[in-house]
């Protein structure tokens, strides 16, 4: 039973909700085009396999966490890798989140300006969004946890419900062929590209010590979170392709928005349904950004042995803002996206398994000594 008095702790189920809420974010609108361009008709399978792959990485993270139940990666990575390499891993982890905020903020502000505030300079919009995220990230974990849960149960379902309206123009034949042989070679690259959809699950490494371990298995709870994410992403992809066709999705910058804008409900006062979708997308993105800002600030706080994470949040905010402005051109944003993807894949598929192997190897050594 979770101790409800303690504001800095959470249950396993809450960890699963936070993970799902963090991972489901900007990609719902700005990530589909790139993924379908890469995967074609097989994108649906790539997402399912990608979900399994990144869940496997999550299981490795849980294994690592179980070995150091009361520590975050800030304390155990130097133990495992040594001081120099351990610090690299910690900086890698923090940088990954910071770069992601910059790229997400740039992509999101472009979409919001395009669909809602055409006369507002994107920089002003980014400043507003970042200010709210900074304010949220300045809070302690208890506040953040409640915000995450609130958004997960309020904004995300409304977003999903609105999205379902586009089923009016859904044509199942657009999804065929289900398993075209010509697209099979694209499966692996799309799975790797799919990291952009699932990214954010790395927070588990940091949040593990904040979790009460009760009767519910953490692996099962996070399995549920990944199931939820996979269903959400799959729904977006299937709806986008079903409404627009694969070629239509690849020709459209924001396929989900286009799919929504193709819906008209005659006789109702509701028009421009895609605008409502943006309204509910903003909080979904906001909670992701807030936690992405909170995590590196906490990492740096522990690393530099500060008692408070807030100075780091305030330090990162202008850096992120200026990085976002630098990434404003299409080419810069594309390059930054690639860098973030490779950094993320390197961390998930390289650092995590290697850390676990290192741990097992060290443990084996210990057991040998005991014998």
């Amino acid at each position, binding site marked *: 039973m979770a101790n409800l008095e303690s504001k800095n702790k959470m249950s396993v189920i809450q960890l699963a909700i936070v993970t799902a809420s963090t991972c489901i974010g900007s990609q719902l609108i700005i990530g589909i085009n790139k993924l379908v361009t890469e995967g074609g008709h097989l994108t649906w399978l790539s997402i399912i396999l990608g979900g399994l792959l990144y869940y496997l990485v999550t299981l490795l993270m849980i294994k690592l966490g179980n070995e150091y139940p009361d520590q975050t990666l800030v304390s155990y990575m130097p133990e495992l890798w040594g001081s120099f390499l351990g610090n690299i891993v910690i900086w890698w982890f923090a940088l990954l989140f910071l770069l992601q905020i910059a790229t997400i903020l740039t992509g999101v502000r472009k979409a919001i300006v395009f669909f809602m*505030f055409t006369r*507002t300079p994107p920089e002003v919009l980014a400043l507003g969004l970042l200010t709210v995220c900074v304010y949220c990230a300045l809070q302690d974990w208890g506040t953040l946890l409640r915000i995450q849960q609130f958004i997960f149960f309020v904004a995300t379902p409304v977003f999903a419900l609105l999205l379902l309206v586009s089923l009016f123009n859904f044509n199942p034949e657009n999804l065929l062929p289900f398993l075209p042989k010509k697209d099979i070679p694209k499966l692996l690259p799309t799975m790797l590209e799919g990291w952009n959809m699932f990214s954010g699950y790395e927070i588990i490494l940091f949040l593990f010590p904040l979790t009460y371990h009760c009767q519910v298995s953490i692996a099962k709870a996070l399995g549920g979170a990944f199931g939820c994410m996979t269903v959400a992403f799959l729904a977006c992809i299937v709806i986008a392709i079903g409404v627009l066709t694969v*070629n*239509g999705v690849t020709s459209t910058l924001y396929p989900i928005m286009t799919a929504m804008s*193709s819906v*008209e409900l005659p006789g109702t006062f509701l028009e*421009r349904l895609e605008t409502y979708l943006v309204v509910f997308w903003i909080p979904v993105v906001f909670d992701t950004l807030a936690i992405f800002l909170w995590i590196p600030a906490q990492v740096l706080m522990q690393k530099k042995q500060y008692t408070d994470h807030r100075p780091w949040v305030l330090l990162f905010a202008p850096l992120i803002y200026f990085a976002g402005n630098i990434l404003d051109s299409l080419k810069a944003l594309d390059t930054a996206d690639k860098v973030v993807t490779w950094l993320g894949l390197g961390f998930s598929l390289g650092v995590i398994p290697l850390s676990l192997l290192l741990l097992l190897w060290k443990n084996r050594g210990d057991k040998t000594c005991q014998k």
Partner: protein
Amino acid sequence: MSKINLLLSCSLFSLCLLISGCWDRIEMEERHFVLAAGIDLADEGLKPNQGPDVTRTETFVQPHGGKRYRLSLQILNLKPDGGGDDGDSKKDGDKKSYVISNTGQSFLEMTRDLLGQDNKDLWWEHLQTIIISEAVLKETGLKPIFDWFLRDHEMRWRVRVFVTPGEARPLLEYQPPSGDPGGIFFAGIMQNHRKDMHLAGMRTDLGWASQALDNDADIFLPRLELKDKVVKVNGTAAFNKDKFVGYLDDYAIKGTKFINATEKSAVVTIDSPDYPGGICAFELFRHDTRLRPHIKDGQVYFTLDISLIGNMGEMQEPVNSDKTSDPKYIRKLEVLFAEEVKDSALYAWRTMQAMHVDPFHLNAKLEAYETEAWEKLKDKWDEIYPTVPLVVSVNVTIRGSGEHK
């Protein structure tokens, strides 16, 4: 003042921030709503003696491109009561819409330059109709015309697009008998496609055209004609990819709707089997249609299975001759109606093959259901398409004979 009261006052005061609205808002009456856009050739519709003057006044100095298109916009007049005291201005003000035009090549550039003819910002979110003249389509494809309409975020996907054999501007100036502005009136006509088998209203708007362009598929747009103050949507303009190839007649549209299962409430007529000169009409309520590709010995063919359920809608037969209570007669009618639907579908199929246009997306169906075979066929599909047979099977069930015999 207690702390709670102070907090409450501050909270209430802060609500003012929410009701102040966006900083960049524009009130509705400060915008001019574009309801319809007409696209003609630049020199179309101008009388020889007024042409150069009008063109010079309307247009602008273009550093690039040529004077290719004449873009006309129908704008909603939000103050139909006029404003002036003299009779003429009152008469002009009574109009619910007015039309302005410009010539150029870039549609974006023309629309911005049109602000020189209007006193308010043009707002495209309520654009209902785009009308393109046939003369333009003989000069250029649809892609360069649609490009701006598809890129701009103010456009809706469900904007109705028409092709007119005449000029587009007179259609924008046309005052519909209902009193509605033309753009809304024309778009409203297309809403009736569910009940009118001659209206190609399904999958023929801007969004579907965009999807067809993305998939390299053929496009079909309804034909809108104005003759002596009579406006009618009749026929469909067919495009091979985005190139105009000709018009389809009403019967071909009817057959196409049967094949594509886009009919909702069709009317099928036959000559009365027992009474020469009489006519029987079947009204469709429900249908189940399946068009499927097959490959046998390397040959492609399609099967079309249609099952229609409906009522007898009309029987022009002599007095006291109604036989709808006779099951044998009903069966006879069902068979005849099925034959008629089959003829209609085959007529549409052959017409499309003759015109080398495909409104049935047969290539997409082959790719979807016979993927491996499609990989071998796709390079020679253009040659194969005109020879692909259709095997039609129609089953009609008459469930009722109407309220009165």
